[in-house]
């Protein structure tokens, strides 16, 4: 039924037969592993009381997330969302900013003013999400329009959202704007079957979210969200299409979040059947198996990577924990950039 409805939309594509090079695959795997291990550390830091705000993890969504980030280039625009640690690393964030922001270091890009996933370096095309879902879509459109004004071509703007976020008016308005302006925008929807506890059945009623694409007149892609090869292929295709004038691309992945919405949620609403279904397979293990089966790397090499990453995480954590917290006495408490405006407010 679902497939059928989907096939009616000519614009929908899937990974197809494109081949992914082993080095790209392994590179992506390393980033996924880094994200996974870093997030495990974040969870531990939360449990030990070192992190005060919420901790939102992307466990099970790393393949999808990395596949977008890895196909972006310096100069592109990237506005990740809640579960995009892997993509952020792929886009070049490094784990320092992540730890600094979660731990509230005064030296981080957000300087303790904002926390956890609400981080970025907008000057470098890496936008800092606001919590309000859907809001980043039109912001990326604006960045792309700015680039168009400046005559820049071959750039892409990308943003991510969840199944729940597709219900926001903001998502609709942003995607429609992108379609009208034929912007090189890639929107990746991670349909992890739930928005917090709310199942798809209370979130939308179309056969598959990719069916939204035809309503905007843009290209839709489906992707198996826990299959790294499929993610890499489809995202490569989508990003390339956007980059070469194909207009907005809507990529919808089916997957499962293998963890609660945030640290306090045990995700007991996720059904056993879902966990046992193909959706419930861990993308990281699947990718590791593929690497070993295809003999692209040996178990020893993979173990070494894991060690290296763990060492880096520990070192960075130790460093950040020693960094100063923001000093409220030194804060100017000024929300304005314009100097002569401060004085009067």
């Amino acid at each position: 039924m679902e497939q059928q409805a989907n096939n009616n939309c000519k614009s929908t594509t899937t990974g197809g037969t494109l081949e992914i090079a082993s080095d790209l695959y392994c590179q992506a795997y390393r980033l996924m592993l880094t994200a996974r291990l870093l997030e495990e550390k974040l969870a531990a830091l939360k449990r030990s009381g070192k992190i005060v705000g919420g901790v939102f993890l992307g466990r099970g969504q790393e393949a999808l997330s990395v596949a977008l980030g890895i196909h972006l280039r310096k100069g592109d625009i990237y506005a990740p969302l809640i579960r995009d640690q892997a993509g952020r690393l792929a886009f070049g964030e490094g784990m320092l900013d992540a730890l600094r922001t979660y731990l509230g270091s005064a030296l981080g890009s957000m300087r303790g003013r904002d926390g956890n996933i609400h981080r970025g370096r907008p000057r470098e095309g890496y936008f800092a999400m606001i919590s309000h879902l859907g809001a980043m879509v039109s912001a990326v459109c604006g960045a792309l329009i700015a680039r168009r004004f400046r005559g820049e071509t071959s750039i892409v703007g990308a943003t991510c959202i969840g199944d729940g976020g597709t219900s926001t008016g903001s998502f609709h308005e942003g995607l429609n704007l992108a379609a009208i302006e034929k912007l090189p925008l890639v929107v990746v929807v991670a349909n992890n079957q739930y928005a917090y506890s709310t199942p798809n059945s209370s979130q939308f009623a179309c056969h598959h979210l990719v069916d939204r694409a035809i309503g905007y007149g843009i290209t839709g892609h489906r992707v198996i969200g826990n299959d790294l090869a499929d993610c890499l292929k489809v995202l490569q295709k989508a990003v390339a299409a956007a980059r070469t004038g194909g207009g907005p691309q809507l990529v919808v992945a089916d997957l499962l979040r293998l963890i609660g919405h945030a640290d306090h949620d045990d995700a007991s609403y996720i059904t056993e059947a879902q966990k046992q279904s193909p959706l419930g397979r861990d993308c990281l293990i699947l990718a590791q198996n593929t690497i070993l089966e295809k003999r692209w790397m040996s178990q020893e090499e993979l173990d070494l990577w894991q060690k290296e990453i763990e060492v880096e995480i520990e070192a960075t954590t130790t460093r950040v924990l020693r960094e100063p917290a923001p000093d409220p006495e030194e804060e100017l408490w000024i929300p304005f950039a314009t100097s002569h405006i401060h004085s009067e407010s």
Partner: protein
Amino acid sequence: MTSITYLEAIRAAQAHALKEDSRVFIYGQDVGAFGGAFKATKNLAKEFPGRVMDSPISEDAMIGMAIGAAIEGMRPIVEMQFADFSTCGLNQIANHAATLFYRTEVPCPLVVRLPSGGTSGGGPFHSQSLEAIYAYFPGLVVMTPGTVEDAYTMLLEAINIDDPVIFCEHKFLYYHLKAESLPTTALPANKARVTRPGRDATIVTYSAMLHESLAAAAELSQDGYEIEVVDLRSVKPLDTDTILASVARTGRLLVVSEAFPWGGVAAEVIARVTAEGFGLLDAPPQRLNAKDTPVPYHPALWGTHRPTASTIASALHRLLKL
């Protein structure tokens, strides 16, 4: 001996209303089987099948749907996951719900529950106090309970009122604030309450700042000052009479609010007191709000951004010397 939290009082009021009034239903993200992000609707979906509905992430449509249901005689309660997300539904609240009765003479009895205010680590998007935004628009009732008892009785009253009510419940109070039992009688929601009687100065405040203010008043009592604390309870309508009576007793006024400093409740209270009770004032009325930046994430910044017992006490000392 059992005790009941502010959050449980909110849950209990909703359970009571669902039980007593078949027109009541609840709509919000994750409010159903999951019981809500803060568990304010825990078990209610099971106890009242079909009447506690999960919504999509569509704040505008959530309010719009409540308006339509209210027109048709229902009494919807909409839970916003955080007050901050209600900005996405502002248009329906301010332009549709608020204007309906004035335009059509058909009442629009709905309640929008806003988990409001700051908590440690909440950051810019999960900490805001938006009562001033809603109080600005004609046609909305805006309640800001600061005690467990008020959370219960005022929510019951909010559900009974024939007008749209913005119910600003404070997240910081959810688990901390406890009472022995739920009240059986209630002060009407549009009356302020003198929570602590005094002589030397009046603090007018509401919501979580009530407790910081009471702590500051206790601190000053050690120096021999008797500070009267008035809890507004509702900010629209605003009970000017109770405030004026207090200022008449003390001659000095400090208004304390966790909201951003421009405009809002503190300015409104001062404008009313100076217009109607200028002669009662022995010193210039003062206000203490949060700072004029987004609410910061880091606990050290957040603790300085909002008023606390200690900054309130300092402000009182300054006021007493004016």
